[in-house]
């Protein structure tokens, strides 16, 4: 009796793993097809280069006007690298949340996804992978241009690559779960929140320390920045790539790399749990209200 129960549970676990992997793999392939096959590779490359570089250039021009071209100030690499890696925030949050609107309103396939043998939250996370890949192109190009043309002090030899890749991995998972949170909310809202990922990423720009130290914020707003995992993630990225320059800013200078990693993991877990419960709630509400196959693209 006990043996059959254990065997049954193992089978269930194996089925769950198989379904999750199948959902993720299929969604990743589908997301990449949607993101990339609208243009030939040359046009796609141009698109992937121009957009992020323009975003970075806005900040470079703003900084250049006021500082009269003094790019050797440590504040510049702080701003530049923060902005470059923040591309992942918009990309991941939009990539996961936009999939709901895209599938529901444009392709009208969300209802078929719901009746297919896949896991919907895993499917949505898989759809975000394509944006991670395109976001990575953008980040690499932006950083490369910064190092090459603007002398951002990134040394490939002295950079702490293990810390960088570990932080990047945790950060991407964290951002994907935040995207799932937004995607859950999108299930209940109309088409005009299609840009919810970009909008939230834009709003969090203030509280993440991406383009200015948190000390610039009024004191009563700083706590919001301190509960955002993105703040610690960007700090770790900067420290791993430009070491002493990043640590010169006082906001998080009292924390060691290990402490920052611990805080990042803890907050990421917290947001992940919130995302999972939010998805369950929104998914149930959307089904109850018949919103899975509605169109609101007026």
């Amino acid at each position: 009796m006990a043996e059959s129960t254990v065997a049954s549970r193992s089978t269930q676990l194996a089925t769950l793993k198989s379904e999750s992997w199948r959902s993720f793999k299929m969604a990743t392939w589908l997301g990449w097809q949607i993101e990339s096959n609208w243009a030939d590779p040359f046009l796609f490359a141009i698109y992937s280069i121009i957009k992020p570089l323009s975003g970075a250039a806005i900040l470079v021009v703003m900084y250049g006007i006021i500082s009269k071209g003094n790019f050797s100030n440590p504040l510049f690499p702080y701003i530049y690298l923060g902005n470059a890696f923040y591309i992942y925030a918009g990309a991941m949050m939009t990539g996961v949340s936009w999939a709901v609107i895209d599938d529901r309103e444009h392709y009208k396939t969300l209802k078929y996804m719901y009746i297919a043998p896949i896991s919907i939250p895993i499917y949505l996370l898989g759809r975000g992978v394509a944006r991670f890949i395109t976001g990575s192109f953008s980040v690499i190009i932006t950083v490369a241009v910064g190092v090459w043309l603007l002398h951002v002090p990134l040394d490939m030899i002295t950079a702490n690559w293990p810390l960088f890749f570990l932080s990047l991995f945790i950060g991407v998972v964290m951002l994907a779960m935040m995207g799932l949170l937004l995607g859950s909310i999108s299930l209940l809202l109309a088409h005009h929140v299609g840009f919810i990922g970009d909008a939230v990423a834009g709003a969090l720009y203030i509280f993440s320390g991406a383009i200015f130290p948190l000390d610039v914020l009024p004191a009563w707003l700083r706590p919001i920045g301190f509960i955002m995992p993105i703040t610690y993630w960007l700090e770790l990225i900067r420290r791993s790539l430009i070491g002493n320059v990043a640590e010169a800013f006082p906001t998080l200078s009292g924390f060691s790399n290990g402490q920052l990693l611990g805080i990042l993991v803890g907050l990421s877990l917290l947001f992940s749990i919130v995302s999972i419960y939010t998805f369950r709630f929104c998914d149930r509400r959307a089904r109850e209200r018949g919103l899975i196959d509605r169109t609101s693209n007026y």
Partner: protein
Amino acid sequence: MSSTSSLAQHPGKVTGWRLFLKTVIARAYPRVIGQQRDKSWMFFDIVLPLGGVIAYVLVYKAIGAPSEYVGFVVMGGAMTAFWMNVLWSMSSQLYWEKEQGNLALYIMSPNSMMAVLLGMALGGMVATLLRAVAIVLLGSLMFQVQYAITNFFQLLAVFVLAMSALYGMGMMTASLFLLLSREAWHLSNLAQEPIYLATGFYFPIKSLPFWVALGASIIPLTLGMDAMRQLVFPSGFKIGFLSVGVEIGVLMALCVVFLVGAKLLLGYMEKLAIREGRLTEARR
């Protein structure tokens, strides 16, 4: 048959400018009503974009910029609302309509595509205006932006001309979307940050090389915002690209060019799309 009996047979039939107006109202109606049914746009379209504006303001504060640059960001942030309205609620909307199957119906119905596009834009105008006003009011209050309007009538003229030219340009680009499919969405996405950079949404356009600024002046918002900065901020005249008078003249010319161009291009693209069978194409 007399005209009186014709009207008796078709009492609701309108033509000319009345048909244009009815079409505008008809296309704006679903958008206005739809926004009342789901008011989440108030948060996602108004409150959240304010965050992006605040971020740029705080960048200027972090690098020690003069206080008028804060005002430039607030104004630029407000004007992005109109650019986004033109881009997403008008230009690329024809792509969505094609996906929905409505585009062929618009073409078949006896109205002007310009009226349909204008209706789309006006339907989203409530949200657009609210966003722009919220950014200006809240941004100005939060950061104590000082304004000194030197000539209100010139300011009004600049705004009206810039908007007219901008929406005319939007209609012209919308005609291109008659021929496009999924690339329409991506091209609209591409026309955000590069336009913000080239037109100087967050900094004086004079800071860019002359020929870059001149090229960017084809977009009505470039000279529109430059003129508004000169008319609204105490030190605006120092950072103007061209004089206000010249910029008003150019905007008037752009109005004419874009509105006439929109009419011609919409007609041409419609014929081309019909000939090439692109009106109901859904290359997903």
